């Protein structure tokens, strides 16, 4: 699995260089908009960045299929479970780094008084949930039917999410919901548990489906 992981890191490094630049710009805009009181951008860019980071596993799988590395990797001393796990780990790593960055930004903004602590906490949890839901739903069909069909499902899901939230309206609605309505953070904890279970279930399903797939 170490070999597959290394190959993915090299591919991510060379194929997604622009992504690092985008994250840096998104971070600056997030800070700037929060300081200037334009809170909507303070959520839009982090969400966009998180969704891009959570696509990393899917993008790498697509590259693997294009180069047939997904087939050749089976000649190496590893199995299909490793191939699937690698994509889930890389996704968590990329998404985790971006999530940590924006969570740190929210924490600093809250510390400096530009954002309420409850809002910072809520937005951080929202990013976590959105970032894990996307690959959890999209990766199993990609492993079962290939990256092209899986990507269609992913795009459909983004459309549904965008329709439900809308960057500005979503942020406003979330603010109206208010964290105090979540007693003792129980709902947050339940939500996180649910999303962790969804991600773990997605991982297991991907392994099961990929092991059955004819390449």
């Amino acid at each position: 699995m170490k070999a597959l992981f290394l190959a993915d890191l090299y591919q991510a490094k060379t194929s997604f260089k622009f992504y690092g630049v985008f994250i840096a710009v998104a971070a600056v805009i997030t800070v700037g908009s929060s300081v200037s009181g334009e809170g909507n951008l303070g959520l839009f860019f982090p969400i966009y960045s998180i969704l891009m980071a959570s696509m990393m596993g899917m993008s790498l799988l697509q590259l693997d299929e294009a180069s047939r590395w997904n087939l050749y990797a089976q000649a190496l001393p590893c199995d299909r479970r490793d191939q699937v796990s690698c994509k889930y780990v890389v996704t968590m790593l990329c998404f985790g780094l971006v999530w940590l960055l924006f969570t740190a930004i929210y924490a600093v903004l809250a510390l400096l008084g530009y954002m309420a602590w409850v809002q910072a906490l809520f937005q951080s949890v929202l990013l976590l949930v959105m970032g894990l839901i996307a690959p959890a739903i999209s990766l199993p069909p990609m492993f079962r039917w290939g990256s092209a069909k899986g990507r269609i499902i992913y795009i459909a899901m983004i459309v549904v999410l965008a329709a439900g939230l809308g960057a500005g309206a979503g942020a406003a609605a979330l603010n109206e919901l208010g964290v105090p309505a979540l007693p003792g953070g129980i709902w947050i904890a339940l939500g996180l548990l649910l999303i962790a279970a969804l991600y773990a279930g997605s991982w297991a399903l991907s392994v099961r489906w990929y092991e059955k797939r004819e390449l």
Partner: protein
Amino acid sequence: MNAIETHGLTKTYGDFTLGPLDLTLPSGCIMGLVGENGAGKSTTIRLLPGMTRPDGGAATVLGVPAGPDMREVKQQVGVVLDDVGYPGSLTATQMGKVLAAAYKNWDQALFEKYLRDLSIPTDKKFSALSRGNKMKLGIAGALSHNARLLILDEPTGGLDPVVRDQVVDILSEFTRDPSRSILISSHIVSDLEKLCDYIAFLHKGRLLLCQEKDRLLEEYGILQCDRAFLDSLPPEAVLGRRLTPYSVEALVRRDAAPAGAALRPVTIEELFVLLVKGDK
């Protein structure tokens, strides 16, 4: 122990069926898989390291059943596919590091020697390499972890004659150690003729012949004669014939040919072409 054994191995894709395939590659030997496009060579090669699941029959690789439990035995197997299959954005140097992480017996010095000897660019992305350089890198990767078995799909395809010769020499050198074996498919039958101890002919998914190369060359010959003489031969003696307005050539079993018939030695290429296309 045999390096590869298959018993009744079958695989079906739509209207194409490979097998049932019964092959045995003894340790220390090289077997060439010959067949036209779509004969089932690549499918056979993918079935052995468990890259594709068979529909029936069984295969063993270095004594281990082919399938999901081959993880350990794959440490001793090197594979080169017809399109190699390395990630497009990796350089040869990076690919070396990936393979080093995969194989316990990775020999970095040997890999670097192959990169130098085969003039493989080390800083170009794999996707930017020529077909020949991609194949050379695939071969270097497969040869650098002290494998006991190489499974190679068209490894000399796309290489110029000089490099092809170099690769054939490297593969010959590889099997000097009697515990090492190679299964190799190629359209370039002359390479297989130089290299192989055994030849297996695949045609439309069926195994036509699988025999020691020297025995094939001893058992069969080419008869050049006139049409009347050819027609007088017993049908079982003639395996294929090539008729032109100017000559008649037939692939015959030497033991069934009439005494005194002038037979010339057959090449592996002629043997295959006449077996497959020879109008019987």
